[in-house]
């Protein structure tokens, strides 16, 4: 059995059916522009595009991947087409990796949309692009697996949206992008360190504007650990809840 054919079949179908649809492409363009404008408008002082870039990139990935994956999987479960995937002779791990790979790719593409805009608006020299790419990939993976975690926890499409927000909005304010981690109240800081986006955003800050505060190895290890935990916990739940 050529499992890579099944893997690429699922990946390509999801890209065509969900992620490369015009509404999603426009979402990928509008979202970073809206966030950038919001930062510009709310700031009383002049804002450097380069300073905004880590936040806009991180949020583009987070908002793009979590809801898309959670919604598509919940939708497929409702229409029972997900059953067809469960009946295919490929391991559950590979199946879920194939299912999440489209969202991960979507997140990565989303992340670089603001970079394309920024090229025309600011000097981007001196950025460690390799580190940017590594952090973007890891943020995309953790955010997608967070979407998977949400998908496995709900049964309705609207629940997938609302439950995603339950994780996303606290992350938005506690990950150090709006308020530096050091300025957060001491009792809230542990929550910040329990959020994967905190580490991803910090790597991006280090790579783009050298303003990160967490040691790079700690951030990378934390993101990998979050990815592994979220993926296998979701697989455990799929086995428990969807294979009755």
């Amino acid at each position, binding site marked *: *059995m*050529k*499992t890579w*054919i*099944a893997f*690429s*079949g*699922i990946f390509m*179908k999801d890209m065509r*059916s969900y992620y490369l649809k015009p509404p999603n492409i426009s979402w990928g363009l509008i979202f970073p522009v809206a966030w950038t404008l919001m930062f510009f408008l709310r700031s009383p002082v002049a804002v450097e595009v380069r300073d905004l870039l880590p936040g806009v990139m991180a949020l583009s990935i987070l908002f793009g991947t979590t809801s898309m994956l959670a919604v598509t999987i919940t939708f497929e479960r409702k*229409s*029972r*087409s997900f*059953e*067809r*995937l*469960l*009946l*295919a*002779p*490929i*391991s*559950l791990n590979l199946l879920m990796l194939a299912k999440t790979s489209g969202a991960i790719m979507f997140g990565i593409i989303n992340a670089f949309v603001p970079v394309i805009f920024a090229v025309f608006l600011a000097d981007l020299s001196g950025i460690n692009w390799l580190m940017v790419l590594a952090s973007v990939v890891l943020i995309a993976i953790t955010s997608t697996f967070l979407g998977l975690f949400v998908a496995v926890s709900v049964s309705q499409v609207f629940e997938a949206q609302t439950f995603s927000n339950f994780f996303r909005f606290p992350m938005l304010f506690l990950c150090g992008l709006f308020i530096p981690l050091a300025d957060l109240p001491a009792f809230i800081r542990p929550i910040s360190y329990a959020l994967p986006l905190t580490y991803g955003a910090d790597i991006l800050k280090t790579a783009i504007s050298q303003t990160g505060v967490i040691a790079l190895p700690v951030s990378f290890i934390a993101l990998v650990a979050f990815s592994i935990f979220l993926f296998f916990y979701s697989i455990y739940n799929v086995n428990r809840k969807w*294979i*009755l």
Partner: protein
Amino acid sequence: MRIIEAENLTKKYNGFKAVDGVNFHINKGEILGFLGPNGAGKTTTINMLTGLAHINAGTVRLMGEDYTRNAKKAQALMGIVPDESNLYEELSGRQNLCFCGALYGMEKEQRENRAEELLNQFGLHEAAEKPFRAYSKGMKRKLTIAAGLIHDPEILFLDEPTTGIDVAFARQIRSLIVDLHRKGTTIFLTTHYIEEAERLCERIAFIVQGKIVREGTVVGLMEETQEEKIVNFTLGGEFSAVESEFKQAFPGYKLKPGGNSSVSIHSPTSFTLLPFVQFFEERGLPVFEAKIVRPTLEDVFVKITGVDLQKMQTGQGAKPGKGRKGGA
């Protein structure tokens, strides 16, 4: 050769036994009908056999190999058609088939050729490029069956294939099932339509309240439950003219006149027809027809299970505890 063997298969949901220690096997090339009312455990059994439900107890083997704890080992050899179409609404018929082929590791050219072949075989070629959502219910069911066959499986699981579709499509699907059987496909068919099972299946297992209450060939089940042999004679004159003479000549037989020129002869044992034919002919009553009357599968099912058939086929399920034999 046995394709699937299930032993003591059990499934519990919150302490309730949906399937309770069932044993059966499916031979290569045959159609096994799993017949029972709604909620009897038919779909749960299919889910266990195909890997959509964990097995709580018992074993299941495919071509001799145990896959109780790892259904993935067996799924490549199975084609599964659920009771509701589960293809992708946004993909066309052809794309759905090709996608299903990819799930089974088929190369691009191989799956495209096979999709073409199946679209022709199932009469869906005209609609091949239409999105699945634009198909009628019957067409959806046909394409779902085609998707189950894309990888040429050893065994095809058909869960209620004609439920909820119109008569014309149901006939087409039955005819497709017959064709598949002729070509040697092994089929596990669940249905609550008794006539469908009688028409299509070689062997039947009756399942009621999670238990198989009787299993056997269609003919065997009918003979097993037949308490007396019955032959119906259609005559060229009135039977009443010879009735008293007949009773004297054949004292061990029961008679049931069925109108002016027909009579049913009942006997607890098998009997030869010649003496009866001679009796009627000698008395100027030519015999136009002599027909052995067998119980229908419906009679057998009611007798074994006591299930209210009307309720079963309108989806209200079984009435347990009324069976004369067996029972759950």
